[in-house]
């Protein structure tokens, strides 16, 4: 598969990197940059899929001397490692995206918040930031323009919930990593109460790439609602796990598994988790779905973070459910009742099911009710999506099979 936007292997060597995206941006007015991003149809690549241009425009339109850009590099979704790939292999593209978003929104300060476990990525990005300061691509009068931008790296302490933008902001401020009540949205009152853009690593890298073209090939790609390309990280029972760039709508989930990842290891596919463990599982029969936001949503699942996990039919599904539930039990921040108590209680029920080897219909009913309540009333995206996968596996594999 040809890499379209991330095709240039301009890895870690600054001398070879052209910063064309940033140079183009600095020649334009901020609103023009925003327009170009809007035209590209770029949606946030962290999981929520919010249109990036609109987010930038909102912050740009707020008058405030201090605004912030935060690059969310707290990639913690199990099975997702495309941000790590980007930071380790294309650090300058990521940083370029941050600087461009700063320029477009009128922000002079940026943070890149990298999860603490990404030791290598932290080293590389740190060095890259230092080099950019040396080369006058960060700091004052960037590339001889009158644009000023400072960037700081913050290392996460290891809480998955800090991937939620408000938890991440709390964490940077030195508070507990727990979600804030929205509204106010971070674009209005974010870091230190100032207007703040929080974008995922991949989103910003894509923005840099989009800006490097005079025309806008990005908007020509994909489907109307899912434009451009997406980095998919594939792991699990496949022959060629890794990070692949996929043009939206060109391939089905099955194609991605079979053609890009070399097919399933083992007898046959049991199920595929298409976008990290916050997204619902797809059974083998459901895999012919084109890889787009809208098509996966139609199937009751989601693109999520793009972390695709393939599970062979030979695996014990309950073991996976137990693993996933353990993860969410441990990682809920504990502030809102539905998420804290829901994940705790479901974990207890799932442990019982795992020990026994099958669920009762009563247990599936309770799990379904808890998922309904938690996804309706939790305080942040973590809670909202924490029980989706677990419930989908029970619904798809156990409701008909088991009756006690």
């Amino acid at each position, binding site marked *: 598969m040809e890499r379209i936007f991330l095709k240039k292997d301009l890895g870690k060597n600054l001398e070879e990197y052209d910063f064309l995206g940033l140079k183009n941006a600095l020649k334009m007015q901020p609103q023009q940059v925003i327009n170009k991003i809007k035209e590209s149809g770029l949606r946030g690549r962290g999981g929520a899929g919010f249109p990036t241009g609109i987010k930038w425009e909102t912050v740009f339109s707020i008058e405030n001397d201090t605004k912030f850009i935060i690059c969310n590099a707290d990639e913690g979704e199990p099975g997702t490692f495309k941000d790590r790939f980007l930071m380790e292999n294309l650090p300058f593209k990521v940083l370029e995206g941050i600087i461009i978003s700063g320029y477009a929104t009128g922000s002079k300060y940026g943070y890149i918040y990298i999860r603490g476990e990404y030791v290598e990525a932290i080293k590389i990005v740190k060095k890259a930031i230092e080099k950019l300061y040396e080369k006058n691509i960060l700091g004052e009068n960037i590339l001889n323009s009158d644009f000023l931008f400072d960037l700081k790296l913050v290392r996460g302490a290891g809480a998955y919930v800090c991937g939620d933008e408000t938890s991440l902001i709390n964490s940077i401020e030195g508070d507990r990593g*727990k979600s804030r009540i929205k509204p106010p949205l971070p674009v209005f009152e974010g870091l230190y109460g100032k207007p703040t853009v929080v974008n995922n690593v991949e989103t910003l890298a894509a923005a840099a790439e989009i800006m490097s073209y005079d025309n806008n090939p990005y908007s020509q790609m994909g489907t109307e609602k899912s434009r451009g390309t997406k980095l998919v990280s594939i792991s699990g029972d496949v022959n060629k796990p890794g990070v692949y760039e996929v043009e939206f709508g060109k391939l089905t989930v099955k194609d991605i598994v079979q053609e890009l990842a070399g097919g399933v290891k083992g007898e046959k596919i049991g199920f595929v988790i298409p976008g990290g463990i916050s997204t619902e599982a797809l059974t083998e029969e459901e895999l012919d779905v084109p890889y787009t936001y809208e098509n996966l949503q139609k199937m009751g699942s989601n693109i999520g973070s793009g972390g695709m996990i393939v599970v062979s039919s030979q695996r014990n599904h309950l073991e996976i459910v137990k693993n996933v539930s353990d993860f969410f039990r441990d990682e809920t921040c504990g502030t809102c009742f539905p998420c804290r*108590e829901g994940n705790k*209680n479901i974990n207890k029920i799932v442990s019982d099911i795992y020990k026994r080897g099958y669920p009762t219909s009563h247990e599936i009913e*309770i799990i379904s*009710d808890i998922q309904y*309540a938690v996804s309706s009333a*939790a305080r942040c995206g973590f809670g909202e999506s924490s029980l989706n996968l677990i419930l989908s596996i029970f619904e798809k594999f156990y409701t008909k099979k088991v009756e006690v």
Partner: protein
Amino acid sequence: MKVKINNREYEFDQEISILDATKKAHIKIPTLCYSEKLEPFGSCRLCSVEIKGERTLKPACVTKITDGMEIFTHSQRVRKTRKTIMELIIASHGINCNLNCLTCSKSGSCEIKEVAEEIGVTEIRVPPISIGLPEDRSSYSIVREPQKCIVCNRCVRKCSEVQSVNILTIANRGPDTYVTTFMDKGMGNVDCTNCGQCILECPTGALHEVYQMDQVWAALSDESKYVIVQTAPAVRVAIAEEFGAEPGKIATKQMVAGLRLLGFDKVFDTNFAADLTIMEEANEFIERFKNNGKLPLFTSCSPGWVKFLEHNYPEFIDNLSSCKSPQQMFGAIAKTYYANKLGISKEDMVVVSVMPCTAKKFERVRPEMKGDVDYVLTTRELAKMFKLAGIDLLNVPQEEYDEPLGISSGAGAIFGATGGVMEAALRTAYEVITGKELEKLDFEAVRGIEGIKEATVEIDGINLKVAIVNGLGNARKVLEMIKNGEKELQFVEFMACPGGCIGGGGQPIPTNNEILLKRMQAIYEVDRSLPIRKSHENPAIKTLYKEFLEEPLSEKSHELLHTTYLARS
């Protein structure tokens, strides 16, 4: 702006929260982590409502109304969600055979029970989970039972937002999140003031006072002991609430009768000791004022406030009045003057206090004045004892306090409300300084429920600047202002609890603003109804000085009625 609530149109002129809007529309939405005195927190999610066009439910406490908003407070999705959340809360609340509602401190005032009923929970389908944390019994005043805690944060927020004491915090994360004190040291080993505001705030039985009911029952059954009781001013205007009466019901005489029925040998009034406190404190103030002593003078009746100052502002210790609180003065007089009169030894006398306060339990054991009082009961504990003894408080024949330690003035009574000590002191100080009779007894300027009140009182051509402060958060503000030279004051009354003793940590639950105001009205009604309204006109006090103490600030007074303090920082 126009808002539709459950398909009916309402108009509001302000951008208020959905919760406030529904309240105005007389629709009740269940809440647990919400409290009128605290910043909305949005964690229990029981107040979640459906809003047309929104993907998920929104918490009514932290979501503001917008023009054209369509809100559904009890749709099927809302009902189903609330019910499940409530099931989860109950499952984690530590209910099993050993730890059930029957034995809980909040069995009669349990908020989660009330909310569960509102929501219509009929079964708990999830298995109970216990966090298995030990009880915290390190404090003389407050017990924590973490297994009953639902981590709503209200105690943490009350301690921080209202009291600015900050001894409670959240530890760990996720399901292991729990409420604790600094380094898990326990309430007795941190800067807790024992004010008990956390108990009032707790919706479950996770916090309650250290009970002394059993010890009091034992003393009452011990025939070799002469057991006397004193009741604080704020108890009489609150205790009837525990028996279903409206807040503000005065039940002094019923309570006196009830105490006799319990078997106390004598029933006395802390108001008597309050009058005594005024005699000493007003004279202390006059002396400091005339002799360029340390000013402003700070009142010292509230042990929660005293401990707060000892921990946080030791530099102001000399500003504290050296007067013991009325509770302790009562004990000291009872065990000397009164015991002598009876011809019994101090050891055979047991002094019990009924207080609206949990900090009094700590004050009792302070080494500076240990032995004055033997046991302290809160208003709630006394109600429990009445119930246990089958005393139908609202219908017992009304009786009067015993003499002489039951004789008191209206000035003693108003100690129960914020501003009362100041007003009582001013009534006496005015007449002592001027030698003239005070025409208008009611100092309206110092009354009311506001946290910080200031007034200038003219006595004999001198303008006296006074302030009345309730709630420790407000105390901190005023102390900071005095420290920075932004406030020049001569006399300040401080009370640890919002509203003063009527809002004390030992009072009936719920205690909210509406209830506080009713109790306060009742306090001033008690004052108005009394024939004597000035401490120095109390005949029993006059006799006490004549027979025993000689005069205010005498050597004897200093020995028995004054104390010292401790820098605790």
